[in-house]
Structure formats: structure tokens, C-alpha cells
């Protein structure tokens, strides 16, 4: 190719070629020549020897003379299952064996159908399996979740759902439509008082969805641990064990585990930092009872309809839920 004019010379001259290749240590030529001579090599060797000697003499410190062998523990052969390799969600419902067996069957079916549809697992323990001692049976949900983690160590989430609640919209897959980080970030209520109307402790406002380990809702009175999700992991063990501490169970909190939960959430930052509060109808819409004013009552299409307290006193869950069972059965057909 021919140009009219030869290419212009640059206004900035290229740097002088380095004498040494870049990356090598620049040794002055005189010194390098010295290093090439025998005397120079001897000198360098001598200096190195002196430093080596000093280092050897100064010593790395005496180790203890008495190594009392008391332990000698070795790695235990416990199969370690990575979180995320199992089912995405395990649905846990503690079932009181003294309740109406027909109702229990229906509740079980309700969970199992939902789980089958999305590839989840279910777990239905009874309170008598756990060392509750004299504390109310409602505490059994805490060890039940721990139990589910032990049974499904590879699961990602545990969803605890009270026996009083029905899954009304089984087409909603929990792990993608609620628990996926971006979805969760859009749902969670940040900077809101943990206990409604005026707790000074508020949820953090700068949390990321993938750092959330505990998703719960609020009803009118406060936190509603009748339906909540916990991410499987070390934090879950810490949280559940702290919650289940006998010191809280023996304290006579008015509402047992609910108030204990409100207490630990408000007093311990490592727990509050993992908490996300989502609108009540996402996880725990109330068909009856003290629902949150803004978004607590059940509307068609909500995932869950809860009848809090229907298993207590002289109430009958089966009867109260009758209309909802019918809707479910019609939907099924």
C-alpha cells in the first residue's frame, strides 16, 4: 500500500529500551561482574552463611517440653451433605395425635399434594418426640425444624406451617415466587418495627435477599410464628437452639414461643440481621383472628389460609375450615 506521505513521526518518543529485561532485578554492571568472579561468589556465600547461622542460633523458640497428650481427637466420619443438594423446601407441620384423625388426614394430604407438585418434602412430627419437659406443646415447632434439618440435610429451606393453616393456592412454588433473592428483596418490609405498633427495634433496611435466613410475618399483635421459613445452615442451628433454650421456656412468656421469639429478635443483632418480614398474606393470611390491618386477611389466591387458635379451647378446626375445604375440593376437580 502506498501513502502520499510517509507516516508521521510520533511526538512522544517511545521509551528507551530498558537495558535489563523488565521483571529482572537491575544489578549494576560492576556488581554483576563481581558476582561472576570466584571471590565475589565466596563473599555472597559467606554473608548468607552468617545470616543463616544467626537465624539458626536465635532459634524458632523452644516448644513446650510437656506435650500432655490428653486429646488426640481426629476427624470424625460424618457425611457432610451440601446445602442445596436436597429438596428446595421441606414443609414441617407438628401434628397433635389427639386431634380428630379425619382432620389430621386432610391436613397431611393438603401438605403432601403441595409438596408433590413442586418437588418438596413433608415432615409431620408429634410434640411427644421432643424433650419439652413442662413447657407448652407449642414449643415443639422449634426442635421439629431442627429435626427436619437433620433428616434432610441437603434441603435449602424449611417451611414451618401450623396445623391450623391450609395451603389454599398450591400452584405457588414457594422457593421461586417468595424465596428467590430478588423476589424476597422486593417483598420484604425494611425499617419496620419488629413488634407492631411501636417497637424501637426495626428491621434492617440494607439486607440482601441471599443473606436472609429467616422469613416471617406479622399479624396485628406481633410476629406470627405460625408460618415461617428458615434457610438451612449453621445459622439455623444457632437460632433454633437459642430460641429453644430452657431459660426462655421456663420464663413464663405470656405467649410462650411467640414472645420468646420477639425477645431474641429484638435483643440479638445476629438474629435481627437475618430476619426479613414479608407482608402477611404472602405466607400467613388469616381467615379468622387478629390479622394485620393492611394485608393480613385471606383473599382468594393467597398461598395460605390460617385459622390461628382453632385447635385450642373448645374450637373445632374441621368445622371452621369447612367452607375452605370445599373450595379446595372444587378447585381440585
Amino acid at each position, binding site marked *: 500500500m502506498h501513502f502520499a506521505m510517509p*507516516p*508521521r513521526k*510520533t*511526538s*512522544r518518543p*517511545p*521509551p*528507551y529500551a530498558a*537495558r535489563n529485561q523488565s521483571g529482572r532485578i*537491575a544489578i*549494576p554492571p*560492576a*556488581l554483576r*561482574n*563481581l558476582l561472576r*568472579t570466584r*571471590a*565475589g561468589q565466596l563473599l555472597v556465600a559467606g554473608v548468607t552463611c552468617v545470616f543463616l547461622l*544467626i537465624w539458626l542460633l*536465635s532459634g524458632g*523458640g*523452644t*516448644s*513446650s*517440653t*510437656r*506435650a*500432655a*497428650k*490428653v*486429646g*488426640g*481427637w*481426629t*476427624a*470424625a466420619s*460424618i*457425611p457432610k451433605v451440601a446445602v442445596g443438594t436436597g429438596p428446595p423446601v421441606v414443609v414441617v407441620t407438628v401434628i397433635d395425635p389427639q386431634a380428630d384423625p379425619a382432620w389430621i388426614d386432610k391436613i397431611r394430604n393438603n401438605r403432601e399434594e403441595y409438596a408433590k407438585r413442586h418437588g418438596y418434602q413433608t415432615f409431620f412430627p408429634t410434640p411427644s*418426640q*421432643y*424433650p419439652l419437659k413442662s413447657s407448652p406443646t407449642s414449643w415443639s415447632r422449634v426442635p421439629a425444624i*431442627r*429435626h427436619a434439618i*437433620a433428616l434432610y*440435610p441437603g434441603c435449602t429451606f424449611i417451611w414451618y406451617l401450623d396445623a391450623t393453616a391450609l395451603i389454599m393456592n398450591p400452584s405457588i412454588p414457594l422457593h421461586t415466587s417468595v424465596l428467590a433473592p430478588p423476589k424476597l428483596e422486593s417483598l420484604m418490609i425494611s425499617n419496620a418495627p419488629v413488634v407492631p405498633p411501636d417497637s424501637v427495634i426495626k428491621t434492617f433496611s440494607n439486607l440482601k435477599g441471599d443473606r436472609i435466613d429467616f422469613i416471617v410475618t406479622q399479624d396485628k399483635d406481633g410476629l406470627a410464628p405460625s408460618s415461617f421459613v428458615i434457610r438451612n445452615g*449453621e*445459622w439455623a*442451628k*444457632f437460632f433454633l*437452639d*437459642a430460641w429453644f*433454650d430452657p*431459660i*426462655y421456656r421456663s*420464663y413464663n412468656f405470656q405467649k410462650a414461643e411467640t414472645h420468646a421469639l420477639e*425477645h*431474641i429478635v429484638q*435483643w*440479638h443483632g445476629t*438474629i435481627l440481621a437475618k430476619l426479613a418480614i414479608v407482608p402477611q398474606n404472602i405466607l400467613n393470611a388469616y381467615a379468622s383472628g387478629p390479622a394485620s390491618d393492611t394485608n393480613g386477611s385471606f383473599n382468594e389466591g393467597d398461598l395460605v389460609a390460617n385459622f390461628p387458635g382453632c385447635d385450642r379451647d373448645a374450637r373445632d378446626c374441621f368445622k371452621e375450615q369447612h367452607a375452605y375445604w370445599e373450595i379446595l375440593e372444587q378447585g381440585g376437580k
Partner: protein
Amino acid sequence: MSRSPSPHGGWSSPGLNTSYDNGGRHSPYVKGSSSHNVTWASAQARSAEVKGYPGFTPRNQGFFGKHFRRISTSLPFTHGDKEKLGRGRPPANKMMQLLTHIGRTLWRLRKIVALVLLVLLIPMLRNSNTALRRTWRRSPWLGGGSKYVVILAANQGGGVMEWKGPREWAIERDSVKNKKKYTRNWGYDLEIVDMSTKKRYAHEWRESWEKVDTIRNAMRKYPHAEWFWWLDTNTFIMEPTYSIQNHIFNQIRDVTYRDINIYNPLNITHPLTDEYLDPETRSLVGDGKIDSVNMLVPQDCGGFNLGSFLVRRSVWTDRLLDIWWDPVAYEQKHMEWEHKEQDAFEYMYQNQPWIRPHVAFIQQRQIMSFPPGACGEKGDDPNIHYQEKDRDFLVNMAGCEWGRDCWGEMYKYRQLSNHLNRTYWEKFKDGLSDFFTRKVKKEDKKKN
């Protein structure tokens, strides 16, 4: 067509520039000119950013390169036998000439000068050696000393509760001096904390429960440290030549036990058997890996002892420090929990299963020997009490404020430690003086 590029005039001719730059020659602008429509200023800024090729690189930029020639030429040389030496060699070998010259002069001045030089050089080397050694021991990739922080509680119980007398001051002074020397030698960090009782909390609940806050503050203050070693005031490091690394962490499997049944003064049921717990929590030793140990606690005859213990920076520790103090627990137990954090931790260890897989117990004498009077009057329990011949690491004069003589004990152990760790020269001197005093005594006896 302007041939003079002006950096100030907003010169912008990407086309021209690009064709030139891509013309095969290696130029500093190659990186900047990949995108078109660049102004001169932006291209220059970008190439300055890249810094792949500095605009002008004079050779020999370092100090030695700059000055070597001047130093070497300004030194006196004898040029008499240059011809003979230089034959067949590069003529620029001035350093060699300098050295041979020095050597020859030394030889001429005989060994006196050499001796004087040596005498001057040795202390210099020694000094530089200690400084060198300290940096060596401190650096995280060589000695690793900066990974350890010693937290020393000073002023325990002082402040509003009682006044400190001269003895208390002396104890504190000795204890602090001892740890300062130790941490300086090994390149650890020392954090001295004032534990005087203060009305720090408005509700006064948390009075003297500051261990947790203190450890947390230390973790914030030393963000690169890994292990934090808590020490009470009434402790004395008997063997400053033991490093924590060698003494504990390099043999951690042997000097610690994770199965509390090995020594179980509190009769804690272990392992947990509840079927709702996962296998790791139910295991005797957790998962049995070294990384899962986040806390090293000694046990004395009465159970856990938090007078000298280690915690590691970890998520687990963060949670533990957070849950350690709880108002509900405090309200129910503060009368019962005489030893505050220590009792609370014992309680948590028993009742919160998540803690067990991450706690290892360290054999008491490995980290905290007791003097006679603590856990037995005689002081002869080989698992608990200080043994001189085994050269135990540290003495914890636990409980000396309850009817024992703290200062007396501190003094005794300080003297003993000094005696045991004499230098060879001191041993030699002591040996000599012993020898003579014995002789004199014998002669006295003979005379009598």
C-alpha cells in the same frame, strides 16, 4: 494538515492517529487508541491511567543504580597495577579492585583492626537481628504473630467497689510487664483493658459482664488477628520462650480434648443424644476438624475457667458473643451465676447444642496452672497444679483475692520464672558464686 500536535489545543484526529499507531510500531498510545473519537486529553489521561509504559524511563532509577557509579568512583584507588589486573578482563571491574584493596589494607594493618571491626559489627548484627526477628515473628506469612492478640484484664473489680492499695498496683504492674515482654518478643498484640466496675449501662444490669464487649472491641481493633487470648490480671507467664503457635496450635489435637468426658468435673452429659439433632451436633468431637474449633477453654476442678481462654474470630464466635448476655437469662439467674460469664457459658454449653461442636477443652496446665491453694491446699494434683520440673507455661493465681496473698504469689512466681529462664552467662555466674559460697561455708565449718 497540521504536523505539530498540540496537547493544549484539543487536538483530535483519531483517524490519523489510529492509522499511525496501528502501523506496526510499538507505541505508548496503542492501548488508548482502540476506541475512536478520542480527544488528545482523554487519550493522554487514559494512557496515564494504564501506566503500562511510563513516558520516559531513565535507566538505573533505584538508589544503588543512581549512586553506585559515583560512590565507586569517588573512593580512593591505587592505579599502580591496573594493567596487570585488567588483562583479559572487562575493565569496569572496580568493585573487585575496591575489595581487594580493602582486603590488602586490612591485611597490612594486621588483625587488630579486623578485631575492632568485628567487635563493632557483632552488636550491630545482634541489634538488627532482634529487629529482624521481630518482623519475622510478626509477619503473617512467616511467624504469624500478628494473628494473635492477648487481651489482659487490668483493674479487675477496681473503681467503685474498692480502692487499690500498693500491693494491687504492684501486682498489676508485674502482670502487665510480663505480658508486654512476652507479646513483644513473639510479635503478638497486647490489649490491656480496664475492667473497673463502672455504671456503664443505664439499667445497671450488665455490671461487670464486660468480657464479651471487650473481646468484641478487640476484634474490631485488630481486624487481621485471628485468635484472641483472654488473660486475667492474676496470671504470670512463666515460660516466655514458648510461643502460642508451638505450645498450643501446632499440637492442638494432642493438647486439647473435645470430648468433655475425658475430664468432666461438672458431669455434663455428652454427647447429646436427642434424635432431633444432626449427627455433627451429636458427635463426641464435632466434625473433628481443626478448623471447626472456635474456642479453647480450660477446665479446673470446678468446671470451666475463663481466666485464660482463647476465642477465634469467626461467625460462630460472633453469634456466641451476641447471645452470651441476655436480659431474660440475667434476670432469672444473676443471683445464682456467681461467676457471671463463666456460669452463663457453662449453662449455654449444656443447653444450646449448637455450641458444642465448636468448643475444645485445653488441658489446664497447658495454659493455666494453679498454685497451691486453688483446687487443693497441697498443690500436688498433676492435672491442675504448677510443676516446676515440667516448666509449665502460665500460672493463674485464681481466687488469690479470697484469703490468699496475691502479691506474695505473684512475687514468688516472678522470681521463679526469672530463675528458670536465666541466660547461660547468668547461670555461669550463679554457678561460680554458688561454688565459692559453698567453699566459704565449708571452711567456716572446718574452722568452727
